[in-house]
């Protein structure tokens, strides 16, 4: 299994992501944003977290014009599996690969803490190994994680089972840290081969660091 991980100026989670996937047996490659193609043997393409282009203008807004993004869009349109974590989620919404947008957190704070999430839909290649309603303890670290989509878009998300994760308390009840519409933490596209989430599963790989629930998620991303 080959995982290719995008690196823009300002990306800072690419090595954590690499370490996490390699600990599960995957081979990985970091792909610099000026590269105009994706490694041919890629099984999973990850847009890693960080602050691409310093979040100038809007989070993810400038990264979408990087040379590599044309190949990313082509890869996704051909059915390739693409995962965007945190800033990667923002880049994928800006690039139009995922619906909606990420706004400034409702209370304007940068939030960095462990948060529980609930699996909402698992009829997709990313979360099919997890039962619905499963609660996972995964860190969040973002300033612009307030997911917005208009009413029509939201109805589409529900109709197509595109909401994969919501923020919850440890019993699975709604607990919304950042003002996201319907407490949404992660969505996929209609075709279900592109998935973006604000939380960082690659930071929850060891109990010593507070949680190893990220292993369950990342194993799922690798097996499909």
């Amino acid at each position, binding site marked *: 299994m080959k995982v290719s991980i995008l690196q823009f100026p300002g990306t800072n989670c690419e090595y954590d992501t690499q370490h996490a996937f390699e600990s599960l047996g995957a081979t990985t490659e970091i792909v610099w944003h000026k590269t105009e193609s994706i490694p041919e043997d890629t099984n999973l393409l990850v847009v890693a977290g960080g602050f691409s282009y310093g979040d100038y*203008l*809007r989070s993810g*807004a*400038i990264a979408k*014009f990087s040379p590599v993004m044309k190949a990313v869009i082509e890869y996704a349109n051909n059915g390739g599996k693409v995962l965007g974590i945190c800033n990667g989620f923002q880049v994928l*919404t*800006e690039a139009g690969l995922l619906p*909606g*947008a990420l*706004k*400034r*957190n*409702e*209370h*304007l704070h940068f939030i960095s803490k462990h948060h529980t999430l609930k699996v909402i839909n698992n009829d997709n290649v990313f979360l099919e190994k997890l039962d619905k309603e499963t609660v996972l303890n995964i860190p969040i670290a973002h300033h612009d994680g*307030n997911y*917005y*989509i*208009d009413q029509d878009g939201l109805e589409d998300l529900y109709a197509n089972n595109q909401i994969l994760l919501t923020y919850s308390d440890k019993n699975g009840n709604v607990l919304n840290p950042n*003002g996201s519409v319907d407490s949404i933490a992660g969505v996929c596209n209609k075709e279900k081969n592109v998935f973006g989430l604000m939380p960082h599963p690659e930071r929850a790989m060891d109990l010593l660091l507070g949680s190893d629930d990220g292993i369950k998620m990342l194993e799922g991303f690798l097996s499909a």
Partner: protein
Amino acid sequence: MKAIVNVSLKAGVLDSQGKAVHHALNSLHFKNVSDVRVGKQIVLQLDTTDEVKAREDVTKMCEEILANTVIEDYEIELIK
């Protein structure tokens, strides 16, 4: 020619920064403010004197990068 682009969150999209500023103004006893919206201004120096062409170009810039039209509106002002 100069183009001034004002980008702000769409009506109906909650503006948390505007709310915080509104709250601060009320705390400072400016009680006659009923709403605050915070946006950003982008000033572009253009190498053209053709107003129609300038507006066309800047509109394209707004649609492609300067604004995220999922959540934001933009206004363009041209100054000769």
